[in-house]
């Protein structure tokens, strides 16, 4: 019988280079705990990311990893899952990577509903490139790079995810790695596209986010499979309610015609000109 693995078995020997105090440490902690709870093996899990501080995560796990192109992590993840449905695919990234550069892929990934989990570490800033406002930055956030703020309204990831068809939607906080691990377990187990919005403070460019631990409300969101109900709940969301918002019943996407054990020659014939 194979020995059960612990969370330490899912960590690599590479030491994270994030700033001390960064929320992303809590995500590695939670992800590795979740994978151990799910009784998975590192060789059966692929962690795919884009570009940015949080997108370094694949290197910090002992799973297979793919550090991809900016904003295109979901595309690589979906391709991998469709080619290797036996793998557990977890896509990770930040708010800039996922909602701006990859914004289009985000909503179509929700719509397509491939069976994978997308974890977005949202710190409302581009940290790696020194603190530019991201799509989720508050319009009045005053900084050297955005004097008086951008004046632009924030992108609302959970609203977009729900409207676009994500089958599981949750919000968690890195200050509670154990709670986040439980949410990741539920997200991975839920069939279809699971989206986990993680509030992950950037203590370097947004030191005021250290206060988030006093602002979040654990278990404020209760799961429903009713889209109308989830939509109404989001109407009174201020971004700090934690929990599972939506657990839908859509069937995950499966490609028709190209799956299974068809001989390569047969597949090639379909593309012959």
């Amino acid at each position, binding site marked *: 019988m194979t020995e059960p693995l612990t969370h330490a078995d899912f960590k690599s020997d590479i030491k*994270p280079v994030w700033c001390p105090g960064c929320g992303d440490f809590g995500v590695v902690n939670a992800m590795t705990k979740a994978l151990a709870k799910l009784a998975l093996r590192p060789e059966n899990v692929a962690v795919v990311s884009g570009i940015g501080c949080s997108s370094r995560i694949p290197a910090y796990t002992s799973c297979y990893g793919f550090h991809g192109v900016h904003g295109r992590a979901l595309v690589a993840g979906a391709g991998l899952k469709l080619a290797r449905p036996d793998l557990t695919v977890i896509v990770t990234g930040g708010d800039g990577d996922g909602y701006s550069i990859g914004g289009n892929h985000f909503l179509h990934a929700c719509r397509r509903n491939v069976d994978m989990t997308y974890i977005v570490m949202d710190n409302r800033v581009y940290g790696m490139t020194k603190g530019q406002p991201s799509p989720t930055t508050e319009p009045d956030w005053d900084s050297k790079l955005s004097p008086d703020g951008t004046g632009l309204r924030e992108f609302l990831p959970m609203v977009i995810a729900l409207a676009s068809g994500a089958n599981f939607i949750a919000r968690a906080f890195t200050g509670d790695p154990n709670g986040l691990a439980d949410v990741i377990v539920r997200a991975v187990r839920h069939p279809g596209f699971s989206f986990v919005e993680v509030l992950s403070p950037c203590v370097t460019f947004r030191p005021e986010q250290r206060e988030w631990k006093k602002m979040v409300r654990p278990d404020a969101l209760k799961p429903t499979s009713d889209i109308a109900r989830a939509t109404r709940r989001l109407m009174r969301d201020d971004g700090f309610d934690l929990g599972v918002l939506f657990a839908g019943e859509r069937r995950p996407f499966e490609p028709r015609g190209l799956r299974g054990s068809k001989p390569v020659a047969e597949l090639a014939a379909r593309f012959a000109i």
Partner: protein
Amino acid sequence: MKRKLPRSVEEFMAYAWAMEVEAAERYAELAEQMGTHHNAEVADLFARLARIEGKHRDQIMEQMGWAQPPDTGAFHWDTPEGPETTDYGDLHYLMKPYHALKLAEHNERRAAEFFEHLAASKVPAGVRAAAVEMAEEEREHVRLIQEWLAKYPEPEAGWDEDLDPPQGAD
């Protein structure tokens, strides 16, 4: 702990063991973080705290005569993490040993309060006695940390000023 209180000394000590495990692992992680950022003094201090908590963990194993770690999968802390675990968010790359020890003092105090709360709860007499004993131990740790702290005066304002800060626009 959420929802259920320990019903036996064995169960209670399993919680105490889990607390020490989480604290030791976190201190070790924090030591790595500070080492990565070339803050060797604080890295060494966190590594030392990790070894101390690790010793407490091993002492519980020995005291209970456990050959295998107890199963603690079924319980949750009432707080986001164990009472003796440092919050990732409390770190600063320029922090001094004083700050690290203040965090440790805070953790030991929370651990003592946790056990005192348990001792005052509706638990079997054996569990209450064990909780009182653990609370006393944690109070002793608070005193030891305070003695340690006396070697490090509070840094003057400006300790976190960096002449080449990461948030400077190029």
